[in-house]
Structures are given as structure tokens and as C-alpha cells.
């Protein structure tokens, strides 16, 4: 493993990749810190910047954007009580209280330190588990693969917020939208309505930008602007000895929990930070302080969500399966670069795999450097009023989408998905499963076809092969478990931060 890591560092440490990592983390923080913009929106917004780059550089930059956006979201949560996404809701509980008590500095510091520690640990885990899982995945046949994707899809739908059936329907609808375009096997046009632009399928970036970027703008506009700008000055961006003692164990526990949850399909940042917070509140000696500005209540979830952010790359890099919406964006970016994510990637693109892992570590270090000394600048960015912000985001989307293929058609696709995204939010349909289904759909079709061809059209192959049968059984259990009222209530509570 060590020689691979060293190889990774030689890839990541080239000037081009280092600067991509730095610029990514910087831009991600800058946009993520803007109120009301979560990591998914940030990444889809910045996706067009990476298209001209070589694949390794592009994915390193996107990863940097991801951590940056996530970390930026924590800053907004702590200083302004404005979580950009679900995973930072938890940070507001104690982080904002700390800021109100005049402890904004230590809160920001512990978020950075916790994230850094968690990031480093989880990176080692990715490096160790990646090759192992890849070896397992390579022994998978098409039937096993199909079942694995089905399991991944179902678990991520089941774990997302709200009604499970609606999430699954959104996912299936996403698979359906992924079918639009030229059928790879037969060359036939499917659902293209003779529109030439549709023969390559619906654009992934316009879809993501519409559903997450544009719809978000409309949703923010309809809400009355409530902003409590922070009055207190930020002093002492470091921890006292006493504070170090209090946060050490929560950081460790948060990292462990986050690393495990991150690997699960549908896991990722939101679930892990809630889990870590709930755990801490239950076992901490300072239970009475939780909700009133307990530093443990910032340390644990911040470590957990960063650990999960790293380990959620594991299923993507080894199996080619995105665990959440952010990873679906990564798959989309890789496919645009002409790389099919999957178990062969580690051998076919070792520079990408190991370079990315090394850059994760470098990126985490950069985050600390970017965030702590430059906090004053981020605070100023926080204060940009929304009426200046949203037209700027909109024009960025417009230019970015247009420049994908120098074609206005993609702009219109963004308009359509902007409308749909807004509509979905009104009828309680989560957009993330749709994006994941959209990305996985074409791969599922290919594996299904191959599996059935090999089995001479006998669908029993999915049950006869032990690996496939196990995976399908797990999927059934996941669905069954979620229909049990007691478990469902537990999940709703966890996601509501209760």
C-alpha cells in the first residue's frame, strides 16, 4: 500500500494537480459559504470549470470542491445558523449556540481540526479498502453486478428523507430518463422525438444544475429572508487545553462512525453527522450542555461528516456505484471525461485512483490552511445579500450550461429541470434518488442484458448465483425494514435531528 500511496503523492504533487486541489477547495469554500447553497449545488455549479482538464486533475479538483463546500457549509451554520444542507443542520444546534456565547473561534477551530483528523484517517481507510473491494468486485458476474446496483439504489432511496415509496419511484423515474437517447446495443433512438440533441441522451450537468441549482434559487426566493448577522467578533481561533481534552474522544468516535456510515449506499454526510451527534449526546459527560453550546456537539458531527465524505468515495472508486447525490455527480463528471467508473479503474487509471487518494489528504490540509487564517474573508462573503447573489448564480449556471457543448439546448433542459425540481419539492419527492438512478440506469441495463444473455433468458440466474442472491435478499430486507413503523419512526427522528 505504501508504494502506491507514494505513487499517488507523486501524481497529486504535480503543480497542475496541486493547484487544482487548492483552487477547488478555495472555490468550494467560497461558494459553499454562501448561504443556501449546499455541496450538490456547488459541485454542479462548478462542474463546467473542469471539463477542459485531464481526468485526474478534474476529479481532484471536484473532490476539493466537495470538501470545501462541506466545510464552508459548517462555517455558515456556526456563524449564521443557516445550514446549507441537511448534514450541517446538526452543526447549527451547538455551533451557533457557541457563537452566540462568544465562542465562535473555538467552534470554527474544532470544526476544522475535527474535519482534518477525520479526513486523514478516512483517507487511509480508502487506500486500504479500495484495492481489497476491487478484487472482490472483479469476481462479480453481470448478474451479481445488476443485483449490487439494485441494492445500492434501493438502500439509498430507503435512507433518504421522507416517503420511501416516493424515493424509489423517483429513482426508477431517473433510470427511465437515463434511457433517453441512442441505445448502445442496437443503435436505435429511444424517446428522442427526432431532436438531434437528445440522441446523446439528456445532459447530466443541465439536469443536476436545474434540479439542484435553479430550483434552489426559486425556493430561497419564496422564503422571507431571515438573517441574523453575527455581531460578536471572532477571537482565539484555537482550543484551550481543557477544550482539547473534551473534544479528543468525540472526534475519534465521530471519525469511526462517519467512516462506516460513509461506505454504505445512501449514507454519506447527513446520516453520519446525525448519528454522531445522537451518540455523543447520549454518552457524553456534559449531556446538560448539549443544545446550549457544547463543543463536543460540534466536534463529533463535523468529524463524522468529513470522514463520511471521504469514505463515500469507496463504493464509487471500487464498484462504480455512487452512494449519494454528490457521488452521482462524480460519476457524471468521470463519464463526461470518458472514464467508466468501476473495478477496472484502479488498474486502468492508477494515477487517477492513487492521485485522488493522495489529493484527499493534501486537500484536507489545505482546508485547514484556507479556513482558519482566512476566516475574516469568509465572514464577509457570508454577508452578501441574496438579491445580489441569486442573479449571479443564475448567470453562472446559464453560461456554464451553455458552454458544455456550445448549445442552447442544454440551457432549455436546465429550465425544464429547474421547474421539475421546484415541483418535486412541493410534492415531497426527493431529487437525489432521481440523479442516482439516472447515472446508474444505463449501467444497469447493460448488466441486465449481459446477464440474461448468459443465462439464456432465465431470470432465475439472479437467485441461483449466491452473491447475487445475497445482495437481493439484503435489498428485500432493507425495503421490508423500512415499512415497519418503529424503524421508520427512528429514521425520521434521526433525519429530523431529534
Amino acid at each position, binding site marked *: 500500500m505504501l508504494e502506491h500511496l507514494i505513487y499517488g503523492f507523486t501524481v497529486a504533487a504535480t503543480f497542475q494537480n496541486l493547484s487544482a486541489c487548492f483552487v477547488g477547495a478555495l472555490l468550494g469554500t467560497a461558494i459553499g459559504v454562501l448561504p443556501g447553497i449546499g455541496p450538490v449545488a456547488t459541485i454542479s455549479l462548478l462542474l463546467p470549470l473542469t471539463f477542459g482538464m485531464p481526468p485526474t486533475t478534474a476529479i481532484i479538483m471536484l473532490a476539493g470542491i466537495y470538501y470545501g463546500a462541506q466545510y464552508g457549509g459548517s462555517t455558515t451554520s456556526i456563524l449564521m445558523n443557516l445550514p446549507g444542507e441537511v448534514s450541517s443542520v446538526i452543526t447549527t444546534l451547538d455551533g451557533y449556540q457557541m457563537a452566540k456565547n462568544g465562542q465562535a473561534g473555538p467552534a470554527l477551530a474544532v470544526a476544522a481540526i475535527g474535519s482534518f483528523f477525520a479526513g486523514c484517517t478516512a483517507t487511509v481507510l480508502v487506500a486500504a479498502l479500495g484495492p481489497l473491494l476491487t478484487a472482490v468486485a472483479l469476481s462479480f458476474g453481470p448478474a451479481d453486478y445488476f443485483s449490487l446496483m439494485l441494492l445500492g439504489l434501493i438502500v439509498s432511496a430507503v435512507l433518504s428523507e421522507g416517503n420511501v415509496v416516493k424515493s424509489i419511484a423517483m429513482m426508477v423515474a431517473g433510470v427511465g430518463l437515463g434511457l433517453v437517447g441512442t441505445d448502445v446495443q442496437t443503435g436505435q433512438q429511444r424517446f428522442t422525438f427526432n431532436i438531434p440533441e437528445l440522441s446523446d441522451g439528456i445532459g447530466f450537468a443541465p439536469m443536476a444544475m436545474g434540479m439542484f441549482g435553479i430550483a434552489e434559487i426559486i425556493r430561497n426566493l419564496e422564503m422571507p429572508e431571515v438573517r441574523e448577522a453575527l455581531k460578536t467578533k471572532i477571537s482565539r481561533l484555537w482550543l484551550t487545553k481543557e477544550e482539547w481534552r473534551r473534544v479528543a474522544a468525540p472526534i475519534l468516535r465521530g471519525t469511526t462512525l462517519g467512516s462506516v456510515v460513509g461506505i454504505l449506499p445512501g449514507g454519506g454526510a447527513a446520516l453520519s453527522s446525525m448519528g454522531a451527534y445522537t451518540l455523543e449526546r447520549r454518552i457524553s459527560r456534559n449531556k446538560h450542555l448539549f443544545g446550549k453550546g457544547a463543543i463536543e456537539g460540534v466536534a463529533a458531527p463535523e468529524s463524522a461528516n468529513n470522514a463520511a465524505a471521504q469514505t463515500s468515495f469507496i463504493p464509487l472508486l471500487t464498484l462504480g456505484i455512487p452512494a449519494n447525490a454528490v457521488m452521482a455527480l462524480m460519476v457524471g463528471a468521470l463519464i463526461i471525461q470518458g472514464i467508466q467508473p468501476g473495478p477496472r479503474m484502479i488498474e486502468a487509471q492508477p494515477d487517477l485512483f492513487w492521485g485522488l487518494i493522495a489529493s484527499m489528504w493534501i486537500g484536507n490540509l489545505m482546508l485547514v490552511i484556507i479556513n482558519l487564517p482566512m476566516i475574516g474573508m469568509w465572514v464577509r462573503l457570508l454577508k452578501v445579500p441574496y438579491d445580489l447573489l441569486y442573479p449571479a448564480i*443564475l448567470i453562472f449556471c446559464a453560461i456554464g450550461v451553455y458552454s458544455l457543448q456550445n448549445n442552447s439546448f442544454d*440551457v432549455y433542459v436546465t429550465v425544464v429541470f429547474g421547474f421539475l425540481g421546484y415541483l418535486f419539492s412541493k410534492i415531497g419527492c426527493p431529487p437525489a434518488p432521481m440523479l442516482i438512478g439516472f447515472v446508474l440506469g444505463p449501467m444497469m441495463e447493460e448488466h441486465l442484458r449481459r446477464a440474461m444473455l448468459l443465462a439464456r433468458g432465465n431470470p432465475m440466474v439472479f437467485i441461483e448465483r449466491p452473491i447475487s442472491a445475497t445482495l437481493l435478499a439484503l435489498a428485500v430486507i432493507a425495503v421490508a425494514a423500512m415499512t415497519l413503523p418503529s424503524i421508520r419512526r427512528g429514521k425520521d427522528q434521526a433525519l429530523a435531528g431529534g
Partner: protein
Amino acid sequence: MRLRPDAQDIFAGVMFIAFAAFMLHLTFESLPIGTARRMGSGYMPMLTFGILGALGVAILLGGLFSGPQPIGRFAWRDMGLILLALTVYGLTVERLGFVVSLVLCIGIASLAEKVWKPLRVLGLIAFMLVLCWVLFIWYLDIRIPVFPWSR
């Protein structure tokens, strides 16, 4: 079980059913289904939209009893302006160039503000023109006509 309709679920159910029905119709109309062993290009669509239709029915039926969750008010004006601004950008960028389309896009979008302040909007347009020019045209060098006459 008492009938307690849930507007959100019923709307979602109907939406999924309608989409699935439309796509299934297209599938059977124009795509060869093939057999499970040798799937035609219509096989996967048939499966996918068949399942989607069934899920839609389940959501619709469940929605008759799970209520009530009203569908919130639609911010038609905000939504219309934002989507219009994007559409106008798409329509004008090739014909009138980057500068005009940017001004139009931001101008239309700014109408969604609660209090419309012309000077603020002008300032924003000027700032974004410079920023986008530096970033997209100068740095990223995207192929886009800048002025109406530069093509």
C-alpha cells in the same frame, strides 16, 4: 381506514402514472421489445416504466389515506421570472452575444427581488460582466460570441 386524501401524494402518484403511461405508449409504439434472452431496445423501458407505473398506483392509493399534507403555494412569479431569464439567455446568447444575453438574464431575474433597486441591479450587471468576461472568456476561453456583431 378512513379516507384522508393527501394532496402531495395524490399529485405525485398521478404524475408518475401519467409519465409511465406516456413512455410505455411510446415504447410499444416504436421500439422492439425482444425476448429476455435477446433484449430489444424496448425491453428495459418496458420494465422500468412498468415498475414506475405500479409505484405510481401505490403512491396514489396510499395518498388517499395518509393525508392531509396540502401542496404549498407556488411562487409563480419568482419561478416564472427565473425560468424566463434562463430561457431568454438561451435564446439570445448565440444571436446577440454574451454581453447582451447577460444583461437581459440578470435584468429579468432581478425583477424577482422584493424591492427592485435599479442602481443596485446596474452595479451587479457591471460587476458580473467583468467577472464572467475574465473567468469564462479570458481564462476558460469558451467559444461564445461577445458582442452582437462579433461572429
